[in-house]
């Protein structure tokens, strides 16, 4: 398995609270991605990073921010969680024009 770890694996939080999900890699891959998976929508890109401190928005970035201060860590923050952000979140890593490897996912429930 690719060295990619997501934490936490499960989280329940209240509406309006901030939440941070962590993705950690040991592969030294340049690219890191955050996706959410929802029924009928597949995997939708939230934000991605192409290097330390280099990030860009995906198709569903509203309400989310990211940071990458080290190659190995990519953090996804929900500034003020809403029920519409209840989802399964996946992190992925890649060297570029090749396959990406995914973490096991984080199931987030906003109540």
């Amino acid at each position: 398995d690719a060295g990619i770890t997501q934490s936490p694996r499960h989280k329940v939080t209240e509406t309006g609270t901030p939440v941070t999900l962590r993705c950690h890699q040991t592969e030294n891959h340049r690219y890191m991605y955050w996706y959410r998976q929802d029924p009928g929508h597949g995997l939708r890109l939230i934000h991605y990073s192409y290097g330390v401190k280099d990030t860009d928005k995906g198709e569903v970035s509203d309400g989310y921010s990211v940071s990458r201060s080290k190659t190995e860590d990519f953090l996804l923050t929900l500034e003020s969680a809403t029920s519409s952000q209840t989802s399964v979140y996946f992190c992925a890593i890649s060297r570029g024009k090749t396959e990406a490897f995914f973490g096991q996912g984080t199931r987030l429930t906003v109540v």
Partner: protein
Amino acid sequence: DQQVKQNSPSLSVQEGRISILNCDYTNSMFDYFLWYKKYPAEGPTFLISISSIKDKNEDGRFTVFLNKSAKHLSLHIVPSQPGDSAVYFCAALGNFGNEKLTFGTGTRLTIIP
């Protein structure tokens, strides 16, 4: 705007027969395509990929075909096995400078024993 589309949400195939999963894309800047398989409660796993300079790539039971003029790719699984039952996603990378990996909505494949 969905740039990668999988128009069949589900597909059922008899064991031993061929499974064909389809994917269409709209952005002509995409130049690398991938297929992923996903089981419940797990992350997606890579299956096979194809560069836009090719029109076919094989890996065991899996073959991906690319038709650039139609902006269409397909994944063939022969012969289909019960363990192939999963959700399949196609994905695309483009010549945008940074490797933004875009996925389709997925097709749930069920292999009938």
